[in-house]
């Protein structure tokens, strides 16, 4: 910050003001276009931007005050043309323009580059950051309209005028009520919550044991075994699903005929088996990665003090590799919870899972209830992501690899 204070301020009238004017003009061009007068917009924007920059710069208006004033001014202008929606949009645009002005005016735009950078290099660096910003926008932005639209009061997949003007009448929780209150969605949710945990349990149990076996020093055919165990992740799902379709149907018939199991139970068994094998590679990969940093002298020490292998495993090894096991388990869980193709091919209507219901919904009848389901799933994945991230940090701390 001390360096920043001494950063040379660019010239107001020949650099900051024209740049601000250019940005304001570009924005106003787009807004003007919406009203059919792009060139008028362009002119108004350029003049407005230049005057704004000149005023703020010349009178050295403090940042907070300058930004508040700009936001308020543009918001009022927006309100005069587009009511509440216009005001919100205006406030956003005002925030962007005023931020841009201060970013230039204080010399913050050069903060991240070495002092010897030329103007062109600085421009390129900031353009680069802008491009990266666009990519991040591309990654995250598609999820936002889904969340917004899930509160739609209408049965449409598109924004209504009421929603855009932030009229409370345009919003409702009816799609959430539909989601939570009908069998159409609750039964698939229940199925997902039956299938995914059991499949996860199977893949975690078998996967952890195998990962421990694989990480020992003398394993014959290690490469080949590893290849087989990773294969469910590498083989495209559609191929796995096709293979399983051919194999599990007769297997199911055999189970029903010879063991006298009922059809619905056999259906669940088939889907659970299929899902747990799909989750195996994730468990293997994460647990093996955790075991790479595992200090084997700890088990030897435990053995030395008289612990048998089982005690050693549960009291010494397990607590240390637990973060890896849990995050592998989460991967396996999400694999099963999010899986459509295999369950579509292997399961029957009784095993319809949440993604399956969403898939048929998207393909056939479009109901915004899907968006409510999607929003709930996004919340769910944020929770999962947080858990995995916390676990990863804990694991690194335990292994003494804490991030700087």
């Amino acid at each position, binding site marked *: 910050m001390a360096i920043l204070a001494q950063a040379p301020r660019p010239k107001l009238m020949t650099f900051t003001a024209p740049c601000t004017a250019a940005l304001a003009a570009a924005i106003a061009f787009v807004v003007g276009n919406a009203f059919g007068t792009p060139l008028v917009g362009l002119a108004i924007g350029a003049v407005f931007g230049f005057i704004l920059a000149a005023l703020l710069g010349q009178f050295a208006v403090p940042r907070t005050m300058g930004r508040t004033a700009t936001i308020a001014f543009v918001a009022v202008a927006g309100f005069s043309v587009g009511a509440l929606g216009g005001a919100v949009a205006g406030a956003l645009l005002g925030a962007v323009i005023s931020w841009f002005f201060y970013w230039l005016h204080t010399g913050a735009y050069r903060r991240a580059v070495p002092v010897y950078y030329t103007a062109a290099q600085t421009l390129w660096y900031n353009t680069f950051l802008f491009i990266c910003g666009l990519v991040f926008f591309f990654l995250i932005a598609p999820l936002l309209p889904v969340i917004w639209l899930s509160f739609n009061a209408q049965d449409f997949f598109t924004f209504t005028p009421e929603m855009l003007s932030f009229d409370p009448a345009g919003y409702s929780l009816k799609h959430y009520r539909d989601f939570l209150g009908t069998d159409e969605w609750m039964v698939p949710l229940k199925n997902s919550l039956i299938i995914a945990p059991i499949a996860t349990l199977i893949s975690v149990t078998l996967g952890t044991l*195998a990962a421990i076996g694989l990480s020992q020093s003398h394993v*014959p055919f290690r490469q080949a075994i590893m290849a087989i165990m990773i294969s469910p992740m590498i083989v495209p799902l559609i191929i796995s699903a096709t293979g399983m379709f*051919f194999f599990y149907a007769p297997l199911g018939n055999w189970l029903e005929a010879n063991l006298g199991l009922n059809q619905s139970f056999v259906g669940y068994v088939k889907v659970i088996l299929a899902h*747990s094998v799909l989750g195996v590679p994730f468990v293997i990969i994460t647990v093996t990665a955790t075991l790479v940093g595992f200090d084997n002298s700890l088990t030897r020490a435990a053995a030395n003090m008289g612990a048998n292998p089982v005690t050693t495993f549960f009291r010494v090894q397990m607590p240390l590799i637990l973060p890896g096991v849990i995050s592998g388990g989460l991967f396996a869980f999400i694999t099963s919870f999010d899986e459509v193709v295999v369950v579509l091919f292997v399961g029957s209507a009784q095993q319809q899972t949440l993604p399956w219901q969403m898939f048929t919904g998207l393909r056939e009848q479009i109901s915004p209830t899907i968006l409510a389901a999607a929003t709930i799933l*996004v919340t769910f994945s944020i929770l999962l*992501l947080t858990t995995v991230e916390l676990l990863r940090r804990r694991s690194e701390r335990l292994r003494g690899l804490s991030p700087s």
Partner: protein
Amino acid sequence: MSDMTSSGQMLAADGTPLKTSLARALRRQKLRALALIAPLLLFVVITFIVPIATMLFRSVENQIVSSTMPQAVELLQQWDSATGVAPDEAVYQALYFDLFKAAEAKEHTKLGTRLNYEQTGTSSLFRTSGRKLDDVGELWQDPIEDIAPALKDGETWFAMMSGTGSNTVLEERRALWASLVEEPFAGDVGITISDEIAQMLPLTTAAYADWAIYEAIEDGKDISKRDPWEAVYAGLGLDLRSDATVRAVNAYTGPHAADLQLLTANLDQMPNTMFKDAFAEMDEDWLDPEVWEAIKIYSPNYTSGYFLNAVDMKKGVETAEMRPENQQIYITLFKRTLWMSLVITASCIILGYPVAWLLANLPMRTANVLMILVLLPFWTSLLVRTSAWKVLLQQQGVINEILVWLGFVDDANRLILMNNATGTVIAMTHILMPFMILPLYSVMKTIPPSYLRAAKSLGATNFTAFRRVYFPQSVPGIGAGSILVFILAIGYYITPEIVGGTDGVLISNRIAYHISSSLNWGLAAALGSILLALVMVLYWLYDRIVGIDNVKLGG
């Protein structure tokens, strides 16, 4: 612990030579490792490798033709399709008995569907013929019952057919049923067919045995009380066409010999219908040599036909030929799948590379926050992201609405972003991008920033330093990410299905179509096998470049 003995050999504490002791310890260690691995290995092999093998098997398996019409297929082998005329009467006669049986068990339509993949129209040919087979049998049944009324009755038949013998005919027919219906057909039929009758009236016996087995085992009825089906009468009629048989019947003294002799005395009342004509009357396509050619080509138990279909070829009698231009779809689809996967991979590199660079070069704290922006879509359900793109891309969708509102796009000419290749590429680039960014990031993290500074201090411009120093070191990351994205892209199903329309679908959608709609499972398996081979090659490359042990998840 160890001691030197007089022979100079190192001994372990228990007195065994150290070498043996160590070898034993090593073996025990190996066994313990294998014992830990074994359950999962077994599990993966049974629940995953075996299904994949089943799929490979399905792509060449073709027993349905020879199991549904075994006798006709056998006779058909002598027929030469090059002559351009339909096969002779014997084949039609065999076809009648095969098809009658199959129709009773409702298996003939399956064969029709199977052959329809190769010869259009076969499906309806088999379906309509199946319904008319009874009428053909009645041509004989009616006069036989008029001449010898006792033969109307199932009990007469049972008494006439039973006797002493080794029942070989019954067992032979049982094996044929088993391969037709894919059930063991085990159990007691309740009859021992007289050897004498079996020798004298072979066709009748075969037809009667077929009926008896089906009636007794499939329907669980007591055959001694039931009337046999029409094919048995047709068999009897055919048997009596031979003079030798007529003489033998006249000399026969077994049960109900009198009824049979009534028939031989009135042979002039029996129809002299030919089966070839009968089939031609059902549907004249039966005279079409092309139908028979298709049957002959697909009569072996294993066929390369599905694979040839999967690459737009057609199996001929001796060689394979390309299908006509307007029927070629799979090569186009494979090309499109590869091309679109390449485009998606390239867009992922272009968009992902700067982001990965930024993440690898920012201070850890900022990078971790930005990493969440990459990981959130990665952890979000695929269906959620696909539905998001549907919301954004459709004609009344968010992108079009904004563009129209801003006046950049005319309301009447909204952009068509969905239900074509554009939609698939945009949505899949978004969905697969984390798989590019994460490997790139982990490789870039290992490139010391000092290299770039060194290059610059030696006089390189920013661009040269990047091109000559940084980029070459990040190539392994690009390789790893590209192969990962490419493998995932060529097998993608859900997203193209929802946003791809007809121009944006991939080979996987065709596989799913054949599994669930057209039910041409063999072709689906063949397409899957080709795709699998493609992926295996890429997998091998990936292993060479990155090593499967180095696959990392979630940064």
